[in-house]
């Protein structure tokens, strides 16, 4: 029998950059494996291209609710049996869903690898989604939504996304809303599961003290027999967000708010232009990476208008998002927004000093080193990049960052971070009644 796995990275230069190996099975399933002998653990992290962006608007919350239901077992595993099996061996398991992915991970002692992988595969491939468990778990998701709504920063983020991505799945909350979830049926969920939890949508990352042969053999034995694909509905691409042509300002009034929030956001590139994403990472670091950065220095330390300020670029499959967030006294909302815009204008008009750029690069590269220390960090990084794009890109990061020039900073700032077209979301305390 021929080896069902083959190396998918044809370019040896490319694959050598990644300390892991990428293999693709004939049915489309990807295995990314890295052996680390120094640690007695194995992390298995299964990434599925089954995030909320595949939902129809009326099913908002389906992908995340399914993540909960995956743990409710199969014909072979009763609800909770998987959690007991993993945790009873001293391992840990959990899952997360975003617009672009759902992923499920276990960390176990290396000797438990073969004993635990079959159950994880069984859950993902053959989730039963029992009707009675569906009804019960929906109550849990309602509580998750309620908890989210009691967090002002989460509310603000949801409002920013809704404003930035109208009529797109990115604009709807991953958790969904109570209204939508109420009318959702187990049958719709099963269809969604059978359409997206298929081998070509899955990246299995296995990192730790386990050889490639063991990893592949276990996967060959247990990550097979997928359910026949069903059609949730015709898949359709996420519609491109409308261009930002003006300043769009939304104000939220929230109860129990002690500090106002200001969030300025811009559309960024999707994975089709990772390079611009890296440059936006550098811009975020230049603007607010530490006390010596201009936004923190000016607004927190000198003018003392903000409690805290930060910015980041968040990569998403179709359209990333660049945002600058401040926690502040409501009195200074306008001053702070103007100051941020003035800083951006400076980025458009004046070349960045080489020393400032070098400092940002060094911070980013060190952060990358600090975030690739453990098997679970590595497994997450590979799975994330491979689900959105290609895993080998993950380790291009330091090299990409190193080659950013001052001119590129100016070009990318002008391309994405307009000073006269952005989405401002503001949260203030609701007036006492």
């Amino acid at each position, binding site marked *: 029998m021929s080896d069902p796995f083959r190396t998918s990275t044809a370019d040896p230069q490319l694959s050598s950059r990644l300390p892991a190996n990428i293999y693709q099975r004939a049915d489309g399933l990807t295995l990314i494996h890295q052996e*680390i002998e*120094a*640690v*007695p*653990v194995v992390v298995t992290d299964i990434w599925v291209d089954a995030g909320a962006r595949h939902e129809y608007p009326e099913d908002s919350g389906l992908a995340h609710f399914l993540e909960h239901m995956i*743990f409710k077992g199969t014909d072979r595993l009763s609800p*909770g049996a998987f*959690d*007991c099996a*993993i*945790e*009873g*061996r*001293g*391992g*840990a*398991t959990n899952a997360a869903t975003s617009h672009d992915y759902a992923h499920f991970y276990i960390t176990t*002692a290396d000797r438990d690898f073969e004993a635990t992988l079959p159950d994880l595969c069984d859950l993902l491939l053959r989730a039963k989604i029992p009707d009675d468990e569906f009804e*019960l*778990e*929906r*109550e*849990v*998701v*309602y*509580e*998750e*939504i*309620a*908890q989210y*709504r*009691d*967090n*002002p920063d989460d509310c603000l983020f949801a409002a920013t996304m809704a404003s930035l991505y109208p009529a797109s799945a990115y604009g709807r909350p991953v958790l969904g809303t109570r209204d939508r979830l109420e009318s959702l049926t187990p049958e719709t969920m099963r269809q969604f599961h059978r359409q997206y939890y298929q081998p070509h949508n899955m990246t299995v990352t296995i990192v730790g003290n386990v050889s490639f042969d063991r990893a592949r053999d276990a996967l060959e034995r247990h990550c097979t027999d997928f359910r026949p694909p069903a059609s949730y509905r015709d898949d359709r691409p996420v519609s491109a967000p409308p261009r930002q042509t003006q300043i769009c300002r939304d104000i939220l009034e929230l*109860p*129990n708010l*002690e*500090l106002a929030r200001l969030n300025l956001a811009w559309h960024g590139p999707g994975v089709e232009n990772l390079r611009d994403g890296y440059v936006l990472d550098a811009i975020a670091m230049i603007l607010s*990476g*530490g*006390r*010596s*950065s201009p936004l923190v220095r000016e607004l*927190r*330390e000198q003018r*003392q208008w903000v*409690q805290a300020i930060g910015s980041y670029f968040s990569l998403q499959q179709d359209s990333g998002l660049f945002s600058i967030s401040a*926690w502040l*006294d409501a009195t200074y909302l306008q001053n702070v927004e103007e100051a941020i815009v003035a800083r951006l204008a400076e980025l458009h008009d004046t070349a960045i000093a080489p020393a400032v750029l070098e*400092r940002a690069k*060094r*911070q*980013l590269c*060190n952060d990358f*080193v*600090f975030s690739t*220390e*453990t*098997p*679970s960090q590595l497994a997450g990084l590979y799975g994330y990049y491979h689900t959105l794009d290609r895993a080998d890109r993950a380790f291009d990061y330091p090299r990409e960052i190193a080659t950013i020039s001052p001119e590129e900073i100016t070009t990318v700032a002008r391309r994405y971070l307009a000073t006269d077209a952005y989405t401002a979301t503001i949260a203030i305390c609701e007036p006492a009644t």
Partner: protein
Amino acid sequence: MLHSQIHRKTLANGIVAIAIGNPSTDIMAARFFSRGGSRYDPTPGTGNLMASAITKGTANLSSMEIAERAESVGASLGTDVTSDYFLANLKTVSSDFGEMLALTSEILREPSFPAAEVELEKRLTLQSIRSQREQPFSVAFSELRSAMYGQHPYALSTLGTEDDVATLVPQDLHRYHRAYLRPDNLIVTLVGCIEPDRAIALLEETFGDWEASGLPTDLPPLPAPNTEPRRVGLAQDTQQSIVMLGYSAPSVLAPAHPDEPDEYAALKLLNTYLGNGLSSRLFVELREKRGLAYDVSAFFPTRVDLSQFVAYIGTAPANTEVALDGLQAELDRLVARPLDPEELETSKRKLLGQYALGKQTNAQIAQILGWYETIGLGTDFDERFPEAIEAVTVEAAQETARKYFSGTPYISVVGPEAAIEPVLGAAAVG
């Protein structure tokens, strides 16, 4: 295992240096602990404000110069205070480590606490204190903590209170710094790719000439809480009610008698059984089977002084009383019947497995060893703890549950007025 890899040296000035080598990554982590912590704040919030302001000026460097030095090499340098110790933590790639040690030395030894910087950090701290009221969980916990601890300093968050923090001036920070941040009260852990003896030598080069003050290093006993269990809470316009049940619990340093159960270990296991993970008792009973919550768990922090055992749930306001009864029933059950041997074994494996997983990064190892040394347990507690867990029997677990969970608990609820009123009684709703 870690214990056998430790290189340890007490410098002439009293600094205890603990180093472990780990060549697998190019990362050096160092942690600087001083004994004391916010429980010895002369005015609540002093230690926290000192930790915030200590990086904002030295005899030779301004706040911006300090920030630029650390940020230009992409190092991470932070300071914090907990109820039991002060902490500075440093993380760098190996080539920058020596330079960053020198900077850390200057900050810890000669902070200047410039008046303008102290004023700024004070204002930001006051905002942070107010911001805690935005989160129902932190409001409920703050109410519970103050009901349980009464006169004891654990009653307050490390941030202190608005009234107290408003009175602090640079002189208070200097005095606190002199009293606690001194070589004969300092433990430093160094973990990473630099060979341990070399790391200790670098520490000695940068910290070795810091003169000990010669003051006594005893930490005086603290007032007993002197409280009685009661129900507290606050009405807030929230989506969820937060319900907490609290019981007084022993310090990790409470003397253990040979013929009595190790109560600390037994309570850690009971906490794991009730609240740790997707297969824990509270999760399964109240979330999986009854759909009452998304977040339901328990915690039993390791404390130098009297600790607390807390079970909590976030639930729909209409379910406030049901959820409280559900939590109470699970605590009562631990008193009424012994765990099955299999339940106990599972909890042991879970606790020890997760304990091992918590020591993966250099920073995690530096934290746990330094913390044990600082609070007086010694670094070998890293080995004694798993042994103590293994030794807990079902009888010992039940005896400990009986001792601590038999009485009336302290109860804290936060949520819409109509939901919490039945729990608190109309008069008590704040």
